[in-house]
């Protein structure tokens, strides 16, 4: 059989509904998909290891067994590769002891030589093997005494443990970001398929045969790809784990906040996993229309910088400092240039619009932060570092910051919002030093805050609620994770609200004002934007 499999057909809203009989109960399911997905739409979970909705179906683990009617009666079949047929009869463990037995046997087989690593395994708590054992396995171990576990790794990685038993390869350094544990691998082939079909760079392979099969890179090569940390997500077990999260926390200690990665205009959907006021990892949040299940290493590891070099307001309250700046702005009549950095939310952009209204004919708005844009990589990055560019355009802000550098002489005041102009391109930004008042609203201490005369610390995007429009015209919502390093910080839109003399207290309030002025958003509120986002009508992409 070829190594190339078919991508699973996923159900959509337009899928035709067909009747099938599940456990003597008639249900309507999408007709153009596989049984595993179809059962999921009616709330029946099928345990699975090798199936992944965004990877080609391989059907090698046999964990997803169901009984399906065929000309010879009911027979076992794998749900992940059986297409839905109108009128088909399906039996799950609820009515079929045979399915129950089959799933239990598969679970037992998978655990035969699996190490007892759960207490020290970074996957524990979100491991498919554990979940399947609980839902379908629960067998007594039959491996006692002499018939103990036989661990096999590649011979050069074998070692004797403290009890004198031969063990397979543990903590193998297969790349700069990923660690492999050969014993925990269940040979599901998902990581291989990810590298082959999604990353298009076959760096991982299954080598050897039978229970000696292991995952390996080519001799002398490393797993090194801008998306290689996605293999730690697709790996259903703790065989591939990321070094950035190694031993940091146990997964059940983490709380999750759904948000949007604001470092790219595709706006990859993420979970912010936090505990005790710190972000411990960012994980991709599945959104079929945006980033599917993928997240680039850059976006994923961005959290390591969230706490570094934070600009904290040490002296007085941020609202007092902001009021002082507001007085300064209203006491003069010179022109003001406002620069919206890429990670500004729609609320921040709208607050700048309010600033424009508060000082009529004085405020000109520029977008971007002098960063150079890359090209889309077709996975989870559009290459444009100005995440909310589309959103700014909908508010009528399109002039780029380069333009400002050319016309710096016209302005008396510069307000940068999350825009590190000096850090991105110091030589271009040098012209801006001619502007006498330079006010920086920034989450970080950076070259721009150093080059500014007034520094106002604001919340980072992981700490604010808000909305953004991605490059494909999806309105998406950010939620604030409770990880702000200081009480004395505010989201940028609130600080801008104080500057323009129209304070707002929350992002949803700001959005209500925004939708009065920008008709595309008229039908939405903060609450009505679900975690999957909504496609804006009539927005060109």
């Amino acid at each position: 059989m070829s190594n190339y499999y078919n991508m699973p057909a996923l159900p959509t809203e337009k899928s035709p509904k067909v009747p099938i009989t599940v456990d003597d109960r008639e249900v309507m399911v999408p007709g153009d998909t596989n049984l595993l997905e179809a059962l999921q739409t009616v709330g029946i979970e099928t345990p699975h290891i090798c199936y992944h909705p965004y990877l080609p179906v391989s059907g090698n683990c046999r964990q997803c067994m169901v009984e399906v009617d065929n000309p010879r009666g009911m027979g076992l079949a794998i749900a992940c590769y059986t297409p839905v047929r109108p009128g088909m009869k399906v039996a799950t463990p609820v009515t079929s002891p045979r399915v129950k037995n089959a799933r239990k046997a598969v679970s037992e087989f998978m655990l035969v030589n699996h190490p007892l690593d759960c207490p020290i395994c970074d996957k524990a708590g979100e491991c498919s093997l554990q979940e399947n054992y609980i839902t379908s396995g629960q067998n007594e171990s039959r491996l006692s005494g002499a018939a103990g576990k036989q661990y096999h790794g590649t011979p050069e990685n074998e070692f004797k443990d403290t009890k004198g038993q031969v063990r397979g390869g543990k903590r193998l350094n297969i790349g700069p970001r990923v660690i492999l544990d050969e014993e925990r691998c269940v040979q599901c082939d998902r990581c291989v398929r990810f590298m082959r079909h999604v990353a298009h760079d076959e760096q991982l392979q299954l080598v050897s045969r039978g229970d000696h099969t292991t995952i390996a890179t080519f001799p002398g090569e490393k797993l090194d790809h801008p998306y290689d940390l996605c293999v730690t997500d697709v790996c259903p077990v703790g065989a591939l784990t990321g070094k950035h999260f190694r031993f940091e926390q146990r997964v059940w200690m983490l709380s999750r906040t759904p948000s949007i990665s604001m470092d790219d205009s595709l706006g990859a959907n993420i979970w912010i996993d936090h505990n005790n006021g710190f972000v411990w990892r960012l994980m991709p949040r599945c959104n079929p229309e945006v980033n599917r299940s993928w997240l680039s290493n850059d976006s994923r590891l961005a959290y390591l910088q969230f706490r570094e070099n934070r600009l904290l307001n040490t002296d007085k309250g941020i609202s007092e400092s902001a009021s002082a700046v507001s007085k300064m702005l209203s006491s003069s009549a010179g022109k003001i240039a406002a620069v919206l950095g890429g990670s500004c939310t729609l609320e921040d952009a709208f607050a700048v619009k309010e600033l424009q209204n508060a000082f009529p004919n004085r405020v000109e708005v520029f977008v971007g932060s002098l960063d150079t844009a890359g090209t889309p990589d077709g996975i989870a990055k559009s290459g444009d570092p100005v995440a909310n560019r589309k959103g700014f355009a909908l508010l009528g802000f399109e002039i780029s910051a380069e333009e400002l550098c050319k016309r710096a002489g016209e302005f008396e005041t510069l307000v940068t919002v999350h825009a590190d102009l000096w850090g991105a391109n110091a030589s271009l930004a040098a012209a801006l030093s001619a502007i006498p008042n330079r006010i920086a609203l920034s989450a970080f201490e950076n070259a721009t805050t150093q080059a500014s005369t007034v520094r106002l610390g604001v919340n980072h995007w992981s700490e604010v609620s808000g909305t953004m429009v991605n490059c494909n015209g999806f309105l998406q919502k950010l939620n604030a994770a409770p990880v702000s390093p200081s009480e004395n910080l505010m989201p940028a839109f609130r600080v801008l609200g104080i500057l323009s003399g129209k304070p707002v207290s929350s992002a949803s309030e700001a959005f209500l004002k925004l939708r009065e002025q920008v008709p595309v958003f008229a039908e939405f509120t903060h609450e009505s934007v679900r975690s999957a986002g909504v496609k804006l009508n009539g927005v060109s992409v």
Partner: protein
Amino acid sequence: MVRQIKQKPMNWIERLYIFEAFRGLFTTMKHYLRGFFRYETLPTVPYPEMKPEILPTYRAKHRLMLRPDGTPRCVACFMCAAACPANCIYIEADSSLDGRIEKKPSRFEIDHLVCVFCGLCVEACPVDAIRMDTCDTSYVHRTREDFIANLETLTQWNPNDYSQNDVLSQAAPGGIKNQQALESWKLRVY
């Protein structure tokens, strides 16, 4: 199930109260005088001159068990912290220096001011690394911070204070089975 306990009704002397009060006082006086003349026979213990006898099964102060080479057996799995109802165990994990073991605690703290001595941490530990059999029940410190037991204080126990049949304790450095255990352990890690 409801169990009803019938009380014996009081007779009229008892209901008069005064005689019963004197009977109670008599018991008190008996103990009072016994304290003067036959001190040793008192049912209470004159703490702190005399320490009460505490069985190893009593849930006393925690200790962390040691491997033959003296490193804590704890593999920093956080099971005890997850089980702890008082949320008073704080662990930070790190890679182990022993190539055969993956994980070790770099910080392990139990706040004894918060601990409710339920023993769930002991039950939860998959490697028998934490025990509460020290028979030590006195907590006397000058600052709140001193009540937080850490990796150092939790591993400072002497195998000689524990039963000779307690294999795990005796395999620790200083124990009678340490030499034997070290041989099968082979590698020494500093």
